C-alpha cells in the first residue's frame, strides 16, 4: 500500500470523538436514535414495539405501554431510555441483542448526556423551509466563498492557491461541456491579460451547445432514460426525442421550476405544446414489459411505483419507495402517504403489456425534434447533395476492379461442385409446436404452417468426400403451402418465406443447437433467385426486418448457398448444426427445406441473374444501357461503395430526424383512470382503502380543490412553491455535486432522517433561497459556483490537509476526480479528430465486441427489437457517448465499466471506481485503438518533429506541455515502437487496420503505427483520465 492511501485509511479508522460543545439533536443524537431505535420506536406503526415512539418529543416524554416516561429531560436517572440502554440484563437491554443492533459505549454516553442537557428535540432540517442566512463577514465577493472561508477560519485553515490557468480551463471545460479545451482555447486563455479572462471563458462554455449534452448525462441517469424497455425481454423503444428535449432545456437555460413542471405535468398544462408533451415523457422512462404470463395488475403497480420512486428521489430527495410495503421506518412517510402520492401517477392510460415489436408502449405520440435548426437542415441538405453526387459519380477504376473480381469469382463458380444431401437427424424450435416440425423420410424438414421461429437442424456430414466448402439450403414447395415455398401472408410476399439469418456451426458431437461462439463465417452467399429487395447478402444482417426471399410465387425449388470462410474437415467435426431464422413476421416461414453440404465451388452467383449474365459476358459486350445497369448495381452493392452509401443513408436519416415527426412516449390522463388503493405489504393483489392524490403529510400542505381531485400539475406547482423545503435544496445540492464530486449534503438522493447533514448548511440554504429568488436560473447558479474562489483552488493536498480533511469536506482545496465514462470516450474521439458534433437524434451503436445481446436475449423467440446487436457505421461510430444506444439488460460495456449505471432505475450520482477492466478498455477497445491511430495522424499533420508531435499530443490530453522527464520517456517509447514496427511492417499494417475510418495513405505505416502507440499511451495517462 502506498503512503497516501495508508494515511487516508488510518484517518478513517479513527473513532469518532465528540466535541465538548452542547449536543445537537440533528447532528449528534438523531443519527444514533434513527439507526438503533426508530425501526421499532419510530414512524412505522406496524413495526412499533411497546407502543413507544422516540422520534416525537411528546411520545417520548409520555412513554409507551409501561406508562413511564422514556425521557425525563435533565434527569437521566429517571429516564427509562437511559436505564434500558445501560441495562445489565440481556433481556432488558436496548436495543435487544437479537435485533443485530448495538450501541457503542460512546453512543450510550452521548444519549445520556443529551438527556442530561435537557433532551432538546429539533425538527428535521430538510423538512423546514430554508432561510437565507446572513453572509459571513469577509473580503470575498462571491457569497459561496464567504461561507466556505468562515468555516475554514473556524478550523484554522484557509483556501489553497488558485489552480493554474491550464488546469482551470481543463476543469471548467469538462465540467461545463464534457470535453477538453483545444490547444487554441488553452493558448488564448493563458495569454489573456484581461481581469475577467476567466469569467469570459465561463460565459463562452455556458453558451456552447455542448453544455446541454454534458449536463444532460446526469439527468438521464436520474430519469432512468434508456433506449429499451427493460425487464426480461428488453426490446427497443423510441424515447430520444425526450432526451433531446433535456439537452435543449439545459442549453436554453430553462428555469428549473419550468423544467420540473413540464416533465411532471407537461401534458396537463393549458394548451400544452408538443414539446411540453414530449417533456412529460420523463414519467414514461420507467421500464415496462410485454412478457407473456406476467400479471397485468402487478405490472401496472410496478410502473407506477417506479414513477413514485423516481419522482420522489429526483425532485424531493425522498426515499418514498420504502413506504410501498409498510410505513417508512425512518421518515415520517406512512404507507397511506405513499399511495396518495402514487395516485398522482396512477391516472395515466398506459397498458400492462405493451411495447413489443419496437413499437412504443402507449401513450405515444408523433413529435418533432426540438433541436432542429434551419441552419442544420440546410447544411445536411448540402452535405447530402455532395454525398449523393460522390456516390453516383463515375468511378471507372473502382468499377473496373470490381468487375474484374466478380468475373474471376464467377469463372471459378461451379468448379468440382458436388452436392451431398444431408439427413436431418434433429429439427427443433424453441417455442414452436414440435408436431408442426417434421423430418421427412428423405431427410428434409417440413413445417406445417406459418410460424415465427428459429429452427435448429442437426445433420451428419458426409465422410470421405473431402473438405466441405459450405452448405446449400434448398426450399421445396408443398401441398400444405398451396404449392408454394412458404406461408407468408404479407402483401407482395404471399406464399413466400423470408429467412432473416442463417447460422452454422460444426462440432465433434451431435449438437442440437447452433454454437454462437463458433459460428462459421459466411464468405460468399449466392441464391438461385431472389425477390427484389431480399438479396442473399442480407442473411449476414441479423436484423429481423430484412432477409433473403426467393421470388414470390415460386412453385419450383429455390436455394441459397453459403460458402464458409474456410473449408470444414468432416472427420474432425462430423456434425453440422444450422439455425435458420424466420422472424420477419407475417408467417414467412418455409414449407419444406433440405440442407446439402457441398464440396468444390458453389455454382451460384451472389448477384441477380441479369447482373450475372452481364458480368459473364464481359464489359466489351455491354451496351451503354447495360453499362449503366452495372454501374448502378456496383454503386448499390459493392463493398467498396459501402462507406459512401452509409454516408448518404445517414444524412437522409438525419434530414428525416430534423424535418419529420417521430414517436415518443408521453403521459396522459386515462378516460377512466384507475382507482388507487393502499396495497397491503405493497402487493398488487391485496388492495385496501381507496385513496386520492395528495402530498406527504410531513411537508407543506396541498389543499384539494373543491371541484376536482389533485393532479400532477398541482403536484408540480406545489413542488415549485418558493417556500418548499426540499425542491430547491435538492437541486442546488445536485448541481454542487456535479462540480465538487459530492454534494454539500453528501446523500444527494436522500434528504430524509437518515441523510447526512450538510457540511455547510447555511451555504446550502443560501444557495437554495437565492436560486428561487433568482428565478430558478440554472446557468446563474452554475456561474456562481464555477467563478467562486472555492471552485478555482488547486486540487493538491499536502499531508497536513489530507490528514485533517481527507474527503475535502471543508473545501480547502479544489475538487479532483476521474472523468466520467462518457468524457473518457468523448475526449479520445475529440483529440483524434473523429468526434462528430451533431446534437441529438436516434441513439447510435458504435463498436461492441461480437453480438453480446444475442448471447443473452430472446432473439428468434420474440418480435421485440434490439435482441441482436447490429453495429452502425460511418459518423454514428463517432457521436458523443450520451447518444450511445442504451440497452438496459446489457448497457454499453465500455461505458458500464467506467461506472455508468444500467438505467433500470433512477440513479443519482455515480460511484467512481478504478479497475483493471477499465485499463483493458482504454488500451484495447477498437474505439480507443482507432482513436490513437487518428490522434497520431492529427499530430503528424500538425507538427514535424518527434518532440513537437509529442508535446502537442501531451498538451491536447492533459492541458499542459510535458516536462523534460516526460518528454524523455515518450521519445524513448516512440523510438522503441519505431524500431519494432520497422522490423515488422505487417504488424504496423495490422494495427493501423483497426477501426473503420480510412487510413491516411500519406503517412508512412511504420511511423504512423509507432506514433499511434505513443498516442495510446497518452490516452492512458492517469492525468488524461482525470478532471484536475
Amino acid at each position, binding site marked *: 500500500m*502506498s503512503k*497516501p*492511501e495508508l494515511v487516508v*485509511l488510518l484517518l*478513517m479508522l479513527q473513532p469518532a*470523538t465528540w466535541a465538548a460543545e452542547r449536543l445537537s439533536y440533528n*447532528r449528534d443524537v438523531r443519527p444514533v436514535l434513527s*439507526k438503533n431505535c426508530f425501526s421499532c420506536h419510530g414512524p412505522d406503526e406496524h413495526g412499533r414495539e411497546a407502543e413507544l415512539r422516540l422520534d416525537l418529543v411528546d411520545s417520548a416524554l409520555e412513554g409507551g405501554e409501561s406508562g413511564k416516561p422514556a425521557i425525563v429531560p435533565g434527569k437521566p436517572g429517571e429516564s427509562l431510555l437511559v436505564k434500558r440502554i445501560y441495562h445489565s440484563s440481556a433481556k432488558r437491554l436496548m436495543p435487544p441483542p437479537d435485533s*443485530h443492533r448495538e450501541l457503542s459505549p460512546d453512543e450510550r454516553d452521548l444519549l445520556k448526556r443529551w438527556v442530561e442537557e435537557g433532551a432538546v428535540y429539533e425538527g428535521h432540517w430538510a423538512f423546514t423551509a430554508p432561510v437565507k442566512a446572513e453572509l459571513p463577514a469577509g473580503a470575498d465577493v462571491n457569497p459561496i466563498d464567504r461561507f466556505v472561508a468562515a468555516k475554514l477560519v473556524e478550523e484554522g485553515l484557509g483556501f489553497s492557491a488558485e489552480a493554474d490557468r491550464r488546469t482551470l480551463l481543463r476543469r471548467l471545460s469538462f465540467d461545463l461541456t464534457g470535453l477538453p479545451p483545444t490547444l487554441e482555447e488553452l493558448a488564448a486563455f493563458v495569454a489573456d491579460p484581461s481581469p475577467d479572462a476567466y469569467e469570459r471563458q465561463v460565459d463562452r462554455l455556458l453558451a456552447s451547445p455542448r453544455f446541454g449534452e454534458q449536463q444532460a448525462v446526469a439527468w438521464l441517469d436520474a430519469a432512468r432514460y434508456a433506449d429499451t424497455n427493460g425487464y*426480461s*425481454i*428488453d426490446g427497443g423503444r423510441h424515447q430520444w426525442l425526450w432526451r433531446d428535449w433535456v439537452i435543449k432545456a439545459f442549453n436554453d437555460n430553462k428555469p428549473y421550476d419550468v423544467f420540473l413542471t413540464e416533465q411532471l405535468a407537461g401534458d396537463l398544462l393549458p394548451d400544452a405544446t408538443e414539446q411540453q408533451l414530449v417533456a412529460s415523457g420523463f414519467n414514461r422512462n420507467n421500464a415496462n*414489459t410485454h412478457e407473456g*404470463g406476467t400479471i397485468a395488475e402487478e405490472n401496472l403497480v410496478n410502473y407506477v411505483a417506479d414513477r413514485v420512486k423516481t419522482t420522489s428521489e429526483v425532485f424531493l430527495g425522498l426515499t418514498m419507495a420504502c413506504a410501498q410495503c409498510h410505513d417508512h*421506518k425512518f421518515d415520517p412517510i406512512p404507507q397511506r402517504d405513499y399511495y396518495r402520492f402514487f395516485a398522482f401517477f396512477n391516472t395515466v392510460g398506459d397498458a400492462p403489456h405493451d411495447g413489443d415489436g419496437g413499437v412504443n408502449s402507449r401513450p405515444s405520440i408523433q413529435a418533432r425534434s426540438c433541436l432542429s435548426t434551419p441552419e442544420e437542415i440546410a447544411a445536411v441538405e448540402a452535405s447530402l447533395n455532395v454525398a449523393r453526387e460522390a456516390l453516383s459519380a463515375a468511378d471507372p477504376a473502382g468499377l473496373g476492379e470490381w468487375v474484374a473480381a466478380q468475373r474471376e469469382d464467377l469463372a471459378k463458380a461451379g468448379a468440382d461442385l458436388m452436392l451431398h444431401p444431408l439427413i436431418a437427424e434433429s429439427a427443433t424450435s*424453441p417455442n414452436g409446436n*414440435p*408436431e408442426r416440425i417434421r423430418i421427412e423420410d428423405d431427410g428434409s424438414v417440413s413445417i406445417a404452417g406459418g410460424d415465427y421461429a*428459429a429452427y435448429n437442424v442437426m445433420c451428419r456430414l458426409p465422410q470421405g468426400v473431402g473438405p466441405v466448402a459450405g452448405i446449400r439450403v434448398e426450399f421445396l414447395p408443398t401441398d400444405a403451402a398451396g404449392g408454394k415455398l412458404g406461408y407468408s401472408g404479407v402483401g407482395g410476399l404471399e406464399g413466400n418465406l423470408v429467412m432473416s439469418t442463417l447460422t452454422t456451426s460444426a462440432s*465433434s458431437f451431435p*449438437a*442440437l*443447437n447452433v454454437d*454462437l*461462439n463458433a459460428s462459421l463465417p459466411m464468405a460468399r452467399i449466392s441464391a438461385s433467385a431472389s425477390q427484389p429487395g431480399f438479396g442473399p447478402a442480407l442473411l449476414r444482417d441479423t436484423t429481423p426486418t430484412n432477409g433473403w426471399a426467393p421470388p414470390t410465387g415460386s412453385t419450383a425449388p429455390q436455394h441459397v448457398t453459403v460458402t464458409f470462410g474456410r473449408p470444414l474437415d468432416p472427420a474432425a467435426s462430423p456434425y453440422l448444426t444450422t439455425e435458420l431464422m424466420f422472424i420477419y413476421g407475417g408467417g414467412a416461414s418455409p414449407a419444406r427445406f433440405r440442407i446439402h453440404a457441398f464440396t468444390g465451388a458453389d455454382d451460384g452467383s451472389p448477384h441477380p441473374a441479369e447482373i450475372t449474365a452481364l458480368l459473364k459476358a464481359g464489359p466489351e459486350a455491354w451496351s451503354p444501357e447495360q453499362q449503366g445497369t452495372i454501374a448502378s448495381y456496383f454503386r448499390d452493392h459493392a463493398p467498396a461503395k459501402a462507406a459512401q452509401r452509409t454516408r448518404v443513408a445517414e444524412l437522409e436519416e438525419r434530414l428525416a430526424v430534423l424535418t419529420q415527426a417521430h414517436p415518443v412516449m408521453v403521459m396522459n390522463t386515462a378516460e377512466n383512470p384507475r382507482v388507487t388503493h393502499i396495497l397491503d405489504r405493497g402487493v398488487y393483489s391485496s388492495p385496501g382503502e381507496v385513496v386520492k392524490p395528495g402530498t406527504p403529510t410531513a411537508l407543506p400542505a396541498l389543499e384539494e380543490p373543491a371541484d376536482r381531485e389533485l393532479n400532477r400539475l398541482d403536484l408540480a406547482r406545489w413542488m415549485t412553491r418558493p417556500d418548499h423545503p426540499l425542491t430547491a435544496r435538492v437541486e442546488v445540492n445536485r448541481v454542487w455535486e456535479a462540480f465538487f464530486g459530492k454534494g454539500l449534503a*453528501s446523500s444527494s438522493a436522500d434528504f430524509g*432522517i*437518515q441523510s*447526512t447533514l450538510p457540511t455547510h448548511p447555511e451555504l446550502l440554504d443560501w444557495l437554495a433561497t437565492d436560486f428561487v429568488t433568482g428565478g430558478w436560473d440554472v446557468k446563474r447558479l452554475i456561474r456562481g459556483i464555477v467563478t467562486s474562489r472555492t471552485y478555482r483552488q488547486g*486540487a*493538491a493536498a499536502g499531508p497536513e490537509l489530507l490528514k485533517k480533511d481527507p*474527503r475535502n469536506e*471543508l473545501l480547502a482545496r479544489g475538487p479532483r476526480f476521474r472523468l466520467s465514462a462518457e468524457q473518457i470516450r468523448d475526449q479520445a474521439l475529440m483529440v483524434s479528430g473523429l468526434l462528430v458534433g451533431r446534437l441529438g437524434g436516434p441513439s447510435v451503436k458504435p463498436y461492441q465486441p461480437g453480438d453480446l445481446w444475442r448471447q443473452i436475449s*430472446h432473439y428468434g423467440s420474440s418480435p421485440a427489437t434490439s435482441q441482436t446487436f447490429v453495429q452502425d457505421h460511418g459518423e454514428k461510430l463517432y457521436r458523443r457517448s450520451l447518444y450511445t444506444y442504451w440497452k*438496459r*439488460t446489457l448497457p454499453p460495456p465500455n461505458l*458500464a465499466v467506467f461506472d455508468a449505471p444500467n438505467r*433500470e432505475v433512477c440513479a443519482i450520482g455515480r460511484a467512481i*471506481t*478504478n*479497475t*483493471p477492466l*477499465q485499463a*483493458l*478498455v482504454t*488500451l*484495447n*477497445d477498437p474505439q480507443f485503438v482507432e482513436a490513437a491511430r487518428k490522434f497520431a495522424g492529427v499530430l503528424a499533420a500538425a507538427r514535424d518533429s518527434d518532440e513537437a508531435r509529442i508535446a502537442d499530443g501531451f498538451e491536447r490530453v492533459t492541458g499542459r506541455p510535458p516536462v523534460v*522527464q516526460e518528454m524523455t*520517456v*515518450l521519445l524513448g*517509447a516512440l523510438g522503441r515502437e519505431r524500431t519494432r514496427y520497422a522490423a*515488422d511492417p505487417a504488424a504496423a499494417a495490422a*494495427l493501423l487496420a*483497426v477501426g473503420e475510418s480510412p487510413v491516411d495513405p500519406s503517412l508512412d505505416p511504420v511511423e504512423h503505427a509507432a506514433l499511434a502507440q505513443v498516442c495510446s499511451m497518452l490516452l*492512458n*495517462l492517469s*492525468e488524461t*483520465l*482525470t478532471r484536475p
Partner: protein
Amino acid sequence: MNAPLMLDRRAFLGRSACGMGGIALHTLLAEGMSMAARGEEVSPEMFRSVAPKAKRVIFLFQSGGPSHMDLFDGKESLEKLHGSNLPDSVRDGQRVTGMTSGQANFPVLKPIAPGKKCGPAGVWISDLLPWTQKIAGDICVVRSMHTEAINHDPAITLANTGSMQLGHASAGAWVSYGLGSTNQNFPAFMVLISQGTGKNPDQPIFSRLWGSGYLPSQHQGVILGAGAEPVLYLDNPPGVTRPQRRAALDDLAALNGRFGEQAADPETLARIHAYEMAFRMQASVPELTDLSGESEETLDLYGPEVRKPGTFAANCLLARRLAERDVRFIQLFHRGWDQHVAITRQLPNQCRDTDQPSAALVMDLKRRGLLEDTLVIWGGEFGRTVYSQGQLGSASSGRDHHGRCFSMWLAGAGIKPGHVHGETDDFCWNITKDPVHLRDLHATLLDQLGIDHNRLVYPFRGLDQKLTGVEPARVVKEILS
C-alpha cells in the same frame, strides 16, 4: 457521529482508494470498511458470524425453472394421480401465470421419466439424471424451496439479488463487497453463460443478475465468455505484442508515478496497480481457459461437450479451474429450463446438458480436496406446475411456472452430504415440511462464508441494504454439518 468523519465506502473506494488494482488495500477495505459508512468504529468482525466453512461459492444457476417433480421430487402418488384434475383445495387460490390461467382444467402430469431413491437419505432422483444419482451421497437436496415470484424476470431477479425489484446488488457482488478478492489475477466474481439445448433461445438473462446494484461497480460479475476473447477487451490490438505492451506499461507507470506523486493523487497510484492487474489478467485468463493440461480422464469425466467452449460442461470445468485459482464467487448461468411446451423432448436435453458436468464438478472438486471449502449450489428461480400446460399427453404439452415449492441441491463446505431437506404434498404443489425461502438460501450461503447476513449491510437511500432484504431470513441450520 462526527459528520466530517462519516465516510461512505462508495466515495472512499472511488475517490481515494482503488478497486481491484491494489488488492491489499482493497481486501483490507473489504474486510474492514463496510461499516465506516455510518461512522462506526470499524472492525473486521462486524459482519462475521461463525468461522467460515467455505472460501468460495460455485452457483450453478439453472435459468428458466427446472421441473422439480420431474427431477428431484417425483413420488408414487403422482403415478396414481396422473390424469386427475388438480383439486382446488390443493391449488389453494394460488395465482397462475397468464399462460395457463385460462385453462379449463389442470390435469396432473406424472414425472416424465422414472427415478430411483438414491444415497443414504433415499432421495428420489430422476433417471434423467444418472450422474446426479451417483453423487447423491455428496449432496443435500432441498425439496422445499419457495418464492413469491411466478414470472421469470421478478423470479430470477429475486433468486440472484434478493429482491424482485430492480436495482439491488447480486449475491456475488455482495460477497465480493464483503470479502474482497483473494487473488491477484482475477476479479472476485466471475460469470459463465451457456445456452441449453432443451430450448434455445430460452428466456433472456440480463446483467442485473450479476450486477452491483447500489454497491460500487467493481463488485459486479465479470463475464468469462467462450469466444476468442473470454474477457471483453482482453487482447492486445492486432500488431501489438506482449513484450511491447510490457514496455509501454513500464513507461506509463513511470509517467503516472511521477504525476501521482507530484499531484499527491492516490487515485493515480491505484491506477498503476489496476494496469498491472490488467496485464496479469492478459496472461492468467488464457492460462485459465487453456485446457491442454487437463488429463483425458478428467475431460472424459465432464463428458463430451467439455471440449466445446461455451457449453455447460466446459463451464463446469472452468468453474473448477477458477476455484483452484481462488476466485471467490463463480456463477454459471445455464438457460433453457422453461418447459412450457414439449417437455418430454426438451427436458431430457436439458438434463443431458447439465447432469454429467454438474456431477463431475462435485466429484472433481472432492478428489482434489476442494469440496471441503467450496460451496456448490444447483438450482433455478422456481419450479413447475404438476399440471400439464396444454393437453395431457400431447407432444407439445409442458408445465407452467410454480413458485410454491421447488428443488435445489447444495454440496461441499459445511453442507450435510447425502441429506434431504423439506417435503411437499402428494401433488408436489405445497410444502408440508421445512420451507426454505430463497432469502434463507442467501442467508445460508453468506453464513457458510462466515458472514452474518444481518450485518453485511450497505447504507443506500436511507436504508441499510442487505442481500436478504427487509423480510426475515434464517440460516438453514438443519442442512449444515
